């Protein structure tokens, strides 16, 4: 790829990007959030068209107008966000768009089984995708690409949702692919992974290629500095502020799912004032449900939730929030913001009944606007005004607005779900600082994160959730990511089944 430039309104996502990939290698792309990695890969896959620049494959210049063109020249892509139709079967998802190869019936099924076996992907063509866990979906995505006979594979952050053991498995697959002569382009933020699997590493910063390096000659620190162009922040907890006052207590929380399966089983949890309790777990093991129970979006089948001494198990979301539980939702676009509403209305969201937003039954727009100005200033939300829509802010700034909003109501407990997911390094560290500050002032925090570094760095206690049960407790001062990963998958012996079974995959 040479001279690739891509502009979005107001943003130059890629600027004069150039790099080469050798056949039969794993080539990693690194860069912080918003550096332009995904955009570049989408250009390579024909999803987006570059404003300038050329792409050359095997010596031929190609012009990619659509994914169809890319597929024709042997490029396959696994997107950062899964591109699967839930209500179709694995077979249907795989053959879609490639029906000419083996039809959509028996021949295709045979072929899928063959590929699945050959690369050890363990995929059953007749499963409904809706029933699969993340790991399985990842493999279906890879199978999709292989099925098309792609020679060049693009994997955009394939490891973001996997636990270390699954990552290892994936890397095994990648090495196998490489051995077959395939080329893999691999995007990750996780530098140690990159270093372990890549043959070459290209670093992108602010839309341009900074360097292509050999993993044998650099270490993670150097790589990170290349990415960011400056010193790295780390999530370090300062001295412990944990008190013995319990601000929130969960006793024997059980939440029944369909078909006699429990989504949560006997969850006991105490959060003390000034304590950050981290929850580690593979996605889909009940974290989301746990949050929903605490926040009152679901009523537990059994068990109680106490806020201080008050039983809030059957309260609604609003009462719980009014009582002093702040909430940073996992998916800010779906649960945290009204993207089409101006910032000041978003400041009201979630606190529609609390000062300064309301006077009696009426919305106090003036006060809410003034308070939004304050939040914008105090929490460094970068926006030209409080009248622009939330959707026009970058993810990090959206997140800072949410954090500011929740902190403004002096919560006793903060439920923070992936508070820094998809947020760039700068914003990330300021969010960490905010959480730390609040903790210092006696806030109890329930922190759910897929970022083990963040968990270890911020938490006072780490609990592992596996198949709806809290299966382990760790001291963040003495635990490694590897240990946590093992516990999260049950590979540490606490459980013996495969974790993705929890999400309902029936083999």
């Amino acid at each position: 790829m040479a001279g690739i430039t891509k502009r979005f309104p107001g943003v130059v996502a890629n600027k004069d990007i150039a790099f080469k990939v050798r056949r039969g290698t794993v080539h990693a792309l690194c860069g912080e959030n918003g550096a332009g990695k995904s955009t570049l890969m989408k250009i390579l896959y024909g999803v987006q068209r570059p404003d300038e620049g050329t792409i050359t494959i095997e010596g031929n210049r190609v012009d990619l107008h659509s994914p169809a063109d890319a597929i024709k020249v042997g490029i396959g892509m696994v997107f950062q966000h899964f591109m699967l139709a839930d209500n179709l079967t694995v077979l249907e998802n795989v053959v879609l768009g490639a029906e000419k190869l083996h039809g959509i019936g028996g021949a295709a099924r045979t072929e899928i089984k063959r590929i699945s076996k050959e690369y050890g992907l363990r995929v059953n063509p007749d499963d409904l995708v809706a029933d699969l866990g993340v790991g399985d979906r990842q493999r279906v995505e890879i199978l999709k690409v292989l099925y098309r006979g792609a020679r060049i594979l693009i994997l955009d952050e394939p490891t973001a949702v996997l636990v270390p053991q699954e990552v290892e498995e994936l890397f095994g697959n990648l090495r196998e692919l490489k051995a077959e002569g395939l080329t893999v382009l691999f995007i990750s933020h996780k530098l140690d992974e990159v270093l372990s699997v890549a043959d070459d590493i290209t670093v992108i910063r602010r839309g341009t290629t900074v360097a292509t390096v050999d993993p044998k000659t650099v270490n993670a620190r150097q790589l990170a500095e290349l990415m960011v162009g400056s010193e790295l922040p780390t999530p370090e907890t300062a001295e412990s502020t944990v008190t013995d006052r319990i601000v929130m207590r969960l006793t024997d929380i059980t939440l029944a799912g369909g078909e006699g399966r429990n989504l949560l089983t006997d969850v006991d949890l105490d959060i003390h004032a000034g304590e950050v309790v981290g929850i580690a777990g593979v996605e889909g093991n009940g974290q989301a449900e746990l949050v929903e129970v605490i926040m009152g979006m679901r009523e537990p089948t059994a068990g109680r939730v106490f806020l201080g001494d008050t039983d809030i198990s059957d309260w609604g979301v609003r009462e719980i929030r009014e009582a002093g539980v702040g909430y940073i939702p996992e998916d800010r676009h779906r649960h945290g913001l009204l993207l089409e509403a101006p910032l000041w209305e978003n400041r009201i969201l979630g606190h529609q009944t609390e000062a300064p937003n309301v006077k009696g039954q009426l919305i106090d727009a003036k006060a809410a606007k003034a308070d939004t100005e304050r939040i914008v200033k105090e929490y460094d939300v970068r926006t030209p005004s409080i009248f622009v829509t939330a959707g026009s802010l970058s993810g990090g700034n959206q997140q800072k607005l949410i954090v500011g909003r929740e902190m403004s109501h002096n919560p006793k407990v903060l439920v923070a779900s992936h508070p820094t997911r998809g947020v760039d390094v700068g914003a990330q560290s300021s969010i960490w600082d905010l959480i730390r500050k609040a903790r210092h002032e006696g806030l109890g925090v329930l922190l759910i994160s897929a970022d083990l570094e963040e968990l270890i760095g911020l938490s006072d206690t780490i609990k592992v959730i596996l198949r709806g049960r809290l299966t382990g407790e760790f001291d963040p001062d003495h635990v490694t990511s590897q240990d946590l990963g093992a516990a999260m998958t049950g590979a540490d012996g606490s459980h013996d089944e495969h974790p993705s079974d929890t999400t309902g995959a029936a083999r």
Partner: protein
Amino acid sequence: MKLDPKRALMTLAAPVLALLIAVVLTSLVLFALGDPVRDVWITMLSAPKPRQITNIVNGAIVLYLSAIAVAVGFRMNLFNIGVDGQYRVAAFAAAIFAGQGWLPGFLNIIVAILIAMLAGGLWASIAAYLKVKRGVSEVISTIMLNAIATGVVAWLLNKVAVKVKGSNATNTQEIPESSQLEGFKLIPGANNRIYTLLILAIIVGFLYWFILGKTRFGFDLRATGRSETAAVASGVKVPRMVMTSMIASGALAGLVGMPLLFGLDHSYGTTFQAGLGFAGIGIALLGRNHPVGIALAALLWSYLDTQSNALQIRAGVAPELVNIIQGIILFAIVIAYELVRRADIRLEQSKVAKELAAQRAVRTPEGAQA
């Protein structure tokens, strides 16, 4: 919100553009089929007489109420296709009550209007219940309920109808003269009058604006419309919200027939105007669910309706041509709004990005991140 001249211009541009497109497309159709293009537009655009102005305003009052009823649902993503049935049930109930003349003049009217709201709300609550408890799409259930309302009202009407000598119309008992509203003489030179219940429309419009824009309830409702998931997470009880707003929509729908009942027909019968609910959908969309926008849209719609009456007499063209014009306006305007919206988003995003870039340039020395 600060008034941004560029955006204001764009918001205005859409309807004007839509009207132009409608004129051009309709003209093309007329021209292609050899109908008198000029006469049609001369007829449609001729200055209405005072009498017709009254009719336009009166028509708009009723359409306005209907559109507001629809808009309440729209603001939270509920499609109340059932305004037609709701106001039929409501007008019937109110007519029965008012016809008895149990209460003295004015009180009779007020209680009848409350009864209409109650009836409309009750009828809508069936759809609300089915949606909340049984997951039945309100689009389908309200369509079914419209047809059921027709049958039920026809049945009851035949039971209670009073026989007027020499008339073939079937009507409820006429409301006592003391409860008939004469109307306002607002348009000079017109011998007909503007419905007294213009007041009702104004009150409803104001309340709509106030409740949706200024109250907690309104905020919750709009939040639900913009993002159901975010609303739930913010503490809105969506099922209850659906229930409330659907019933509110039905209660407002109940008002649709009131100006007609007290200002024109004085009883409910087989010639009572139907189909206002569907027109209301179009008008709500045209007016972008905004109380003033809806008023303008209702006036436009009513203007077209009234002017089309003369089409056959003066241009020899079927008056239903106006449906084509209305339909095209509707299409043109939603497309125009959509294009303007996209342009708007692009505009705002690049503005945000530019201003941030400027801020960033200032801060760079401090080493802030992208």
